């Protein structure tokens, strides 16, 4: 099953990447995740591994994933090492001279060799997973734009303070 969701965020790719590329921040914006923990010493970059679980139906489903693509401000892709077969990708593209960012989140999952029941389970889980992907991007946009607004306000205040002093 392949699912995707997209959103355009009023912030530059660097600001979006600050959250997307931070392994400690994933639980802040991912919808449906119950666990996202680094496994091993490497925390970021290609080869970093995490134990990821998502609440689906009766239980938490997931496994061990490994980052296979790491291009700051552009691409973050992972694939599963154990557990449910899964591939995922965040694709970030700057718009309007990088004042905005188009974010695409893709997720493909299944279990090889599971046959008809595997197909049925993929279909049954799809509405929930699609809901999670949309919720994730909505929350990502909310947090990044909030942070962006806070940073801009801080800059304005600093400018005002500098004017008063001069």
């Amino acid at each position, binding site marked *: 099953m392949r699912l995707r969701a997209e959103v355009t965020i009023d912030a530059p790719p660097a600001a979006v990447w600050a959250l997307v590329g931070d392994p400690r921040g994933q639980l802040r914006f991912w919808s449906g995740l119950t*666990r996202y923990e680094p496994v091993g010493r490497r925390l970021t970059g290609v080869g970093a591994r995490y134990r990821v679980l998502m609440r689906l139906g*009766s239980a938490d489903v997931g496994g061990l994933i490994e980052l296979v693509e790491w291009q700051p401000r552009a691409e973050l892709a992972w694939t599963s090492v154990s557990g449910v077969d899964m591939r995922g990708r965040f694709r970030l593209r700057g718009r309007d001279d990088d004042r905005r960012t188009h974010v695409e989140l893709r997720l493909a999952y299944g279990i090889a060799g599971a046959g008809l029941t595997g197909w049925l*389970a993929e279909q049954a889980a799809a509405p929930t997973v699609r809901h999670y992907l949309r919720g994730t991007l909505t929350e990502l946009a909310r947090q990044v734009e909030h942070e962006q607004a806070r940073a801009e306000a801080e800059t304005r205040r600093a400018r005002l303070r500098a004017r008063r002093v001069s």
Partner: protein
Amino acid sequence: MIGPLRHLRSQADAAPDLDERDPDFIRERLPGLWLLSSVYFRGDVRGLGNIPDTGPVLLVGNHSGGRTTPDTTVLVSAFSTYFGVERPLFALTRTAPLSWPPPGWLRRFGIVAPTPGAADVALRAGASVLTYPGGDREGQRPSWEAGRIDLGKDTTWVETALRHNVPVAPVVATGGQETALFLGRLGRGSGVSVSLALPWVINVGELAGHVPLPAKLTIEVLHPIDLRERYGADPNPAEVRDDIAAQMQRTLTQMQRARRLPVLG
């Protein structure tokens, strides 16, 4: 008929061969089990995060749902999706020799008969073990006693946990007793249960299990207990059993209170 049954029983009584558990087999059937657990039983398994990420644990559950053991199916599949099929879990259950589906299938899932020493072999190998001390007696108790924990008088599981120094994680399940209308036993002291169940209507003895009604199953894994830390260096097994049973009873009572309607949950 007696010959094949005897053969099955002798197979079940043998020491478990841990190699019969097949992680690839389980993995390929997880979607089907997940569908059964999530869609048919609308299962809700909570507290798996309480179990340590590594090392053997003795999971001690209350048994419900007769020999069809829907609670075992839901818990074993949830354990496998949570920790991965690579982490071995062996479930000791009396359903292995006689109930549908065929025994070989069950053994590949890691379900083994509760023979003396079965838990020892598994725990020694670093696997986790799920046991139902109440066995058939608890699993086939009348449906109107669904809110009662009955782990029995046996303390073998406590002694096993102490011998291997492994934590005990109590597992409390509810809903299984609503998969049929269990009426109790034929006469006092008899091992023959009677229930109104599909497809048999009147099901005596449950030799071939039953088709469970889609009752909502809720399972809660409580915090693992280090027996020596809680009860001292040389605890009395009977006191440990009673204390853990009382803890499970409190949880089950709360879970039963949260249920509004039979079957629907």
